[in-house]
């Protein structure tokens, strides 16, 4: 079955116009050359000089800088998320292709964090870095390793990354600034594979692990959905999302709620049901009442 996932974008393609994205974040050692070789594997070239940030007001630039900085923090934490998930998958003796793609996802997140840091600099003029930190994934030593690997894959990949692809896809449609559009597209093209990784592993785990795996997935589902809902409900940086700001890749919190609700109803729940995983009260929890609560 052939599916056009990226609409003509080659996820393995190299960007001949690559330039170091955030050189102030690098080590200053010979490692940099190899780092650039890894970062070069990018689906779309980023026209950094084409940004229209100078047409914005100061408050609009401040709003965008704050959001892109928060994005860099989230992408930076995701590096450790995929690293920890890889440990769980190794412990469960996951298939080799699942392992390689999970580890590659961590590298992708480094690239995303660098891009978001540079976007923040475009709007603020400041060379800031995301704060140090490590993400958390549940660990239950009493649970079978397969169940834990599956449950955390569901949390990270099936729910979080699938939502990310949905929201990125919707945001790209509203974004006209060429630099922001290209950055969002580059991130989106990677996130598609991060999300698909989870759905494929879930299918594999159910085929090999049976009912225990389904029970573990069902137990994780409300927790995974709540985790993303926490992000959607979180407080936002100060400043209005003006029409001009929207063209640089931002939506309002209210719009995000609608997109998450739509994603639960039309993507996540049908997917879990098709795999035989009970969905509990997901539809009620994130239905219209939740979507319109902001």
């Amino acid at each position, binding site marked *: 079955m052939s599916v056009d*996932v990226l609409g003509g974008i080659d996820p393995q393609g190299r960007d001949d116009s690559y330039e170091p994205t955030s050189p102030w974040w690098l080590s200053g050692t010979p490692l940099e050359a190899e780092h650039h070789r890894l970062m070069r594997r990018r689906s779309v070239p980023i026209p950094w000089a084409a940004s229209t940030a100078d047409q914005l007001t100061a408050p609009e630039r401040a709003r965008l800088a704050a959001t892109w900085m928060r994005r860099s923090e989230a992408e930076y934490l995701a590096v450790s998320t995929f690293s920890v998930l890889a440990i769980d998958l190794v412990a469960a003796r996951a298939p080799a292709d699942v392992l390689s793609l999970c580890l590659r996802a961590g590298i992708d997140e480094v690239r995303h964090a660098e891009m978001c840091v540079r976007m923040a600099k475009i709007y603020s003029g400041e060379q800031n870095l995301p704060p140090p930190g490590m993400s*958390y994934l549940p660990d239950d030593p009493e649970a079978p390793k397969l169940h834990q690997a599956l449950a955390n894959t569901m949390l990270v990949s099936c729910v979080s990354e699938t939502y990310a*692809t949905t929201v990125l896809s919707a945001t790209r449609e509203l974004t006209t600034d060429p630099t922001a559009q290209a950055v969002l597209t580059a991130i989106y093209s990677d996130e598609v594979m991060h999300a698909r990784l989870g759905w494929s592993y879930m299918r594999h785990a159910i085929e090999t692990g049976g009912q225990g795996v389904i029970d573990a997935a069902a137990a994780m589902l409300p927790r995974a959905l709540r985790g993303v809902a926490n992000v*959607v409900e979180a407080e936002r940086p100060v400043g209005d999302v003006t029409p001009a700001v929207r063209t640089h890749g931002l939506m309002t919190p209210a719009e995000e709620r609608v*997109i998450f609700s739509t994603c639960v109803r039309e993507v996540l729940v049908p997917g879990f049901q098709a795999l035989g995983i009970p969905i509990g009260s997901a539809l009620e929890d994130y239905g219209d009442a939740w979507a319109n609560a902001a």
Partner: protein
Amino acid sequence: MAKHRELATVMYANTLGRSSASKIWRTVVFAGAMLVTPIGMGCGGGGGKKAETTPPATETQAPPAADNAAADEAAKKEAADKEAAAKAAEEQRLLAEKEAADKKAAEELAAKEAADKKAAEEAAAKKPRPRTQTKNRPTGRGFILS
């Protein structure tokens, strides 16, 4: 004009995320989980175990009867054969005893190794993830949209 804007807003709100959701359903979930194939027929699985067959038992043939004319000779021969057979049977019994003892020792060793392996696997299975954090924290991440 204001009404047109209102209408556009309502229409936008009604379709917000719908086309993206539809695209992601097809390209990520449906393709990733191979939903075109029913569960149980996709990846993984394995062939059924082949039925074991038991070889048919062979019938033993009765030895031919002794000749009356050579009864004495035959009796002697029979006695000698009996003695030889008894000796062979004794040797066979000792050999079988030794084999049984060896087999039992091997089984005990295998059982011990299996028990040790199982204990090690159980210990490994209950080992927490390296560098895991004991403090419970909120989980989940999502692309920060605004």
